[in-house]
């Protein structure tokens, strides 16, 4: 599928979501950006988009941020932390996740990513393009 079709679908979902009190998050994989598109960064960016649309940052997230700031050295945001936060945030209202060019994601990353999305998707719809 081309970028155009997924971009079109994302816009269409956004339009429809407005009337349904739903949120939409998207992600475009890119061969050229494989290093920075780690599962943690990718899922973190989905979470960021979902949180952006809310008036207040969920307490679970701001508390995790504060804990991280107070920790010496900070262990950094872990994949499991993000998955948990995504599960909570996406369960609050209908959430659409659109992912483009899954084939451009590094294979090792893809396994982790799909495993995480599988957990999250128990409660929400996902649109994937390869």
């Amino acid at each position, binding site marked *: *599928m*081309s*970028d*155009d*079709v*997924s*971009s*079109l*679908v*994302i*816009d*269409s*979902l956004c339009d*429809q979501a407005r009337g*349904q009190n*739903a949120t939409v998050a*998207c*992600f*475009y994989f*890119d061969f050229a950006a494989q290093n*920075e*598109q780690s599962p*943690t*960064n*990718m*899922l*973190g*960016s989905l*979470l*960021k*988009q979902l*949180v*952006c649309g809310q008036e207040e*940052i969920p307490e679970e*997230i*701001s508390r995790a*941020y504060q804990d*991280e700031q107070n920790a010496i050295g900070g262990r950094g*945001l872990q994949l499991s932390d*993000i998955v948990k936060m995504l599960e909570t945030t996406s369960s609050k209202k*209908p959430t*659409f996740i659109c992912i483009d060019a899954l084939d451009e994601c590094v294979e090792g990353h893809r396994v982790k990513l799909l495993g995480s999305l599988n957990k999250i*998707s*128990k*409660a*929400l*719809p*996902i*649109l*994937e*393009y*390869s």
Partner: protein
Amino acid sequence: MSQLFSNNIGSLNTTNINFTVTGDRSNILAWLSPLDPRSRHKDIQGRRVENVGEWILQTEEFRSWYSSSVEGASDNAVFFCYGSPGVGKTYLR
């Protein structure tokens, strides 16, 4: 005089609180991820050809995925679209 003073303190505190909250919000968002897929979306959105690809929104597969999703049916949560390289994906650009 003391009334005036305490009023001023009040407004000063309020300003500080607002400032901190706004700062924290953008710090937290940046902490969640350095990536910003919305800018890529905007870029592609601008290069899209009107009415091309609309067909996908009309397919039975898309419609049933969308409607069951809105109703919260999780057994139909994933809609997977695929195409081999060279079948015309780029053509749609």
